[in-house]
């Protein structure tokens, strides 16, 4: 009898997660996005198994500008490099940089936003005015300025993109914390003698994870787009290292005669960004506690 109760209760406990999964599953677009991203991630992660890195950088003048065929799925570029291999390996850099950037922005934004929202007063003013200053400058311009100042390179680009993303995350975190701060259970935690940092970590952070995850998913798409933009402008990942934006950039003079060189990497960027946005949309509906049915 007792065992039965326990079993019933453990099943009940997971019901919230189940509900979220169920609500997420109802959104067809977000499921499509999810599937696309999973296929993409699998293809990119398993790349060394079916396509060696040599193909990415191997030049062969006799095989310039070949149209897509069975041998070269996406054709070849002006140096005879296989576009398929370049896109697959380029995706590694695009997605990796996107994730790292958004990860840094997520953690830093959370810390700053929680501090600003919970402590208020002077702390709030200093952090948020600083964020306002950063937000006043368009993200891409800010990243360009930082990269130009620090010099080209993956590390510097990551720093630049993170800095331009942090204020957004901080603002989301802050607004969530401010609505939570005056909740009675926070007050109740105080009457139990809980310290302020413990209240933030144990009581506030779990509560704001939902909105933050949505924000991060939305930000991931635009970050990948920004990485590609920087690559296209020639201040992101430097050629010959493949990166989706960089690939478009190196082929821009030939796009007129060989349009597939621009269209295919462009499509990859578009589909990836769209998929992340769809997932973000689905998560927003799934994590919204008011959408209970």
């Amino acid at each position, binding site marked *: 009898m*007792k065992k039965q*109760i*326990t079993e019933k*209760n*453990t099943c*009940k*406990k997971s019901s*919230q997660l189940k509900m979220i999964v169920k609500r997420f599953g109802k959104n067809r677009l977000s499921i499509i996005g999810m599937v696309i991203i999973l296929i993409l991630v699998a293809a990119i992660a398993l790349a060394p198994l079916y396509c060696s890195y040599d193909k990415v950088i191997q030049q062969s003048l006799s095989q310039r500008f070949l149209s897509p065929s069975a041998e070269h799925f996406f054709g070849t570029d002006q140096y005879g490099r296989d576009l398929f291999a370049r896109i697959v390996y380029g995706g590694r850099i695009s997605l990796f940089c996107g994730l790292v950037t958004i990860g840094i922005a997520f953690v830093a934004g959370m810390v700053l936003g929680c501090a600003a929202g919970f402590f208020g*007063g002077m702390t709030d003013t200093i952090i948020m005015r600083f964020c306002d200053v950063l937000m006043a400058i368009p993200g891409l311009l800010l990243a360009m300025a930082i990269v130009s100042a620090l010099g080209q390179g993956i590390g510097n680009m990551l720093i630049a993109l993170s800095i331009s993303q942090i204020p957004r995350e901080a603002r989301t975190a802050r607004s969530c914390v401010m609505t939570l701060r005056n*909740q*009675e*259970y926070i*007050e*109740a*935690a*105080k*009457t*139990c*003698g*809980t*310290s302020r940092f*413990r209240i933030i970590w*144990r*009581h506030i952070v*779990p*509560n704001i994870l939902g909105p933050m995850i949505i924000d991060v998913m939305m930000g991931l798409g635009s970050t990948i787009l920004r990485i590609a933009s920087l690559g296209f402008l020639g201040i992101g990942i430097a050629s010959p290292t493949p990166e989706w934006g960089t690939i478009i950039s190196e082929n821009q003079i030939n796009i007129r005669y060989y349009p597939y060189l621009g269209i295919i990497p462009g499509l990859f960027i578009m589909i990836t960004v769209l998929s992340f946005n769809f997932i973000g949309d689905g998560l927003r509906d799934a994590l919204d*506690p008011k959408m209970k049915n």
Partner: protein
Amino acid sequence: MGKFLEVKDLHVQYKTDESVVYALNGLTLDVEKGETVGLVGETGAGKTTLALSILKLLPEDVGKITKGSIYYNGTDVIAAGKNEMRRLRGEEISMIFQDPMTSLNPVLTVGEQIREVLVLHFPDMTKQEREKRVDEILTLVGIPPERKSQYPHQFSGGMKQRVVIAIALVAQPKLLLADEPTTALDVTIQAQILQLMKDLKQKLNTSMIFITHDLGVVMEFCDSVAVVYGGEVIERGTIEEIYVREKNHPYTEGLFNCIPDLGVDTHRLHPIEGEVLDPTLKPAGCKFADRCRYCRDNCKKSNPDMYHIGGTHFIKCYRYTDGEVQTNE
């Protein structure tokens, strides 16, 4: 060593940009060990402010203790440091909030929320001991211990209030501040919760300040009563002394008159005339003077003292200067 809890001449102000709110104006209250005091008064009388002052949790920057003293078991609460207060809260003094719907964190299981108090105050406890303690306290408040892995939204209102009580009691505090713990519940659940608190109080010998505006609950549940009006205690005495209704402060009288009497065929209730005192004002005389039908000249000029009526009965009204009703009309 003096009383268990001794609040003396406590003044608390809430300062905002526009105005100053005088929440407590010289509130004095003693609580003995094991005693349950019913704190009765209208909305805005300063009941919750008193509870928050004792825990030193008045809203920062806004609320301020301007005068008076609070001694808990010999400890000067107002002078106590941050760490000392953190130890007191939860371990020695804990609080039950009015609304169980909002006083539990929706993303933590109830077990985690109860355990947290133990983690904070008994860091030496082993994991097993902690689990055992959580199970015990849940059984004590009448919740099957298996349910500790559930989230608050899986509990009904009455069950949630039991969880809140479990959190408040798990460290076996010596003083419990109950801020209208039954107001948000329906009457049958209210009776259950009250019975539960009564049992627990006897088992653990906890002192309690029971904040409410329900005179019936006070009579059933408390040892003594303190009627609060305008941030002051205006009448203090045991249940018998006050509920016998021979000598009462005019305000307490008014409160009693608001309760419909089953034995008499009344068509209308008798509310207390006038409005609650604007807390941004600070009249020189009695706070109740404007609404009092016994009001005389000196009531508006100076604030009366607490006059001894007999036993432990005190009333803050000029009618009882010598302990007897004065009728010099």
